[in-house]
């Protein structure tokens, strides 16, 4: 038997064992556990603010930890930091490359980062001495586009890339401390755990992976989606993962059961999920879709309980404030909307 054939057989056998082990703990379904729980009441959120200023498609947004400031990235070649309470632009940062796909706000509020088709993650210092926002570092090593980035702190950031890897960077030296490889398709999205020890990634190989940041190892792999995973986030309790895919569904996977608990789907939804965010308690999952809408799901009952309709083009990004007070949607129509 050739070595390839041997490896293939070994992989199949291991996958069968994992499948059996998952089945062995699958003693009940989530719908059965919550059969006595009522569906949450209809959720009707209103647009409270519209953030106007970008001149082209918005690709990404991220809330700061103060739940007031947020950063957005547009293919007009700008990063804008907004005061969402007043709609004022705190910073309008011109980018070297307008092909931006992601942005992130550091937990400290001191920096923002972005990247895209330039394959780099650029770090900007918001608190420079002379008040000007300047590029602090350009993190270059990925051989594919930068799809997502998230700060661990002011000295470390995690990136995901179209080169199928994720990486942990030392911002000070501008170098990769760890490369996380294992995905067999473009990495599209990542989210960091609340304790900053783990992160999850979603990719075009239809899987989500849980990574141990310090060990540099993949701990778990979740399948089931039938197309690219574009969006990923931690459920607020930290023990479950939410994913959104081009297959039109969102899923919740539990880390400790190592399997899917439920799928959020509707036969009337025939387009991909671009973005998602849970509400503060996790009872609601807000998901943005290619059809210009955002659906609000009851996470326990897997029923749609609301819609955010108001954008004139694809909803590309969504984020709920850390304090849970509002959701922000960003769209290809160039606007951001704040809802609650």
């Amino acid at each position, binding site marked *: 038997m050739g070595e390839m054939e041997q490896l293939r057989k070994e992989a199949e056998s291991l996958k069968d064992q994992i499948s059996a082990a998952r089945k062995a703990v699958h003693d009940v379904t989530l719908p059965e556990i919550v059969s006595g729980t009522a569906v949450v009441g209809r959720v009707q959120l209103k647009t409270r603010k519209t953030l106007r200023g970008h001149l082209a498609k918005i690709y990404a947004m991220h809330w700061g930890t103060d739940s007031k400031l947020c950063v957005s990235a547009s293919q007009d070649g700008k990063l804008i930091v907004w005061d969402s309470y007043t709609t004022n632009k705190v910073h309008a940062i011109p980018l070297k490359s307008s092909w931006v796909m992601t942005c992130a706000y550091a937990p400290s509020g001191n920096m923002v980062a972005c990247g895209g088709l330039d394959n780099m993650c650029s770090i900007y210092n918001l608190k420079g001495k002379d008040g000007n926002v300047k590029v602090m570092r350009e993190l270059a090593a990925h051989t594919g586009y930068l799809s997502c980035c998230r700060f661990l702190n002011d000295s470390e950031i995690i990136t995901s890339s179209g080169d199928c*890897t994720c990486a942990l960077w030392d911002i000070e030296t501008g170098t990769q401390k760890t490369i996380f490889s294992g995905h067999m398709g473009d990495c599209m999205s990542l989210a960091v755990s609340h304790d900053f020890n783990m992160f999850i990634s979603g990719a075009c190989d239809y899987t989500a992976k849980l990574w141990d940041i310090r060990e540099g190892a993949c701990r778990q792999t979740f399948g089931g989606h039938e197309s690219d995973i574009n969006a990923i986030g931690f459920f*607020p*309790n930290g023990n479950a993962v939410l994913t959104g895919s081009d297959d039109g569904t969102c899923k919740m996977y539990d880390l400790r059961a190592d399997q899917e608990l439920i799928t959020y789907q509707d036969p009337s939804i025939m387009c991909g999920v671009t973005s998602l965010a849970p509400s503060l308690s996790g009872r*609601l999952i807000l998901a943005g879709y290619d059809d210009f809408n955002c659906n609000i799901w009851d996470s*326990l009952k897997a029923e749609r309980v609301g819609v955010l309709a108001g954008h004139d083009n694809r909803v590309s990004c969504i984020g709920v404030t850390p*304090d849970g007070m509002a959701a922000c949607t960003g769209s290809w129509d160039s606007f951001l909307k704040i809802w609650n």
Partner: protein
Amino acid sequence: MMDYSIAQVEAAKMPVINVEDLSDKDKAKMEVDQLKIEVKLERALVSKCCEEVRDYIQSGVEEDPLVKGIPEEKNPFKEKGGCVIS
């Protein structure tokens, strides 16, 4: 005389993994190695995990602003003052 910054030296040492450059055999070996790690995982009962998800939500849902709504005076995004045209 060449002067290299620490960053440049470190950058030269960085490992670069191009998944596209890996042979099919390398990828297959990577996959098997990863599966060997994952097969050893200890898995908790789905019932227990579902109950924890449900309990976590129940304990927080009453304070979830997007579920319960926000009184006008407490909403930082609500329009403040201004004229009302009637």
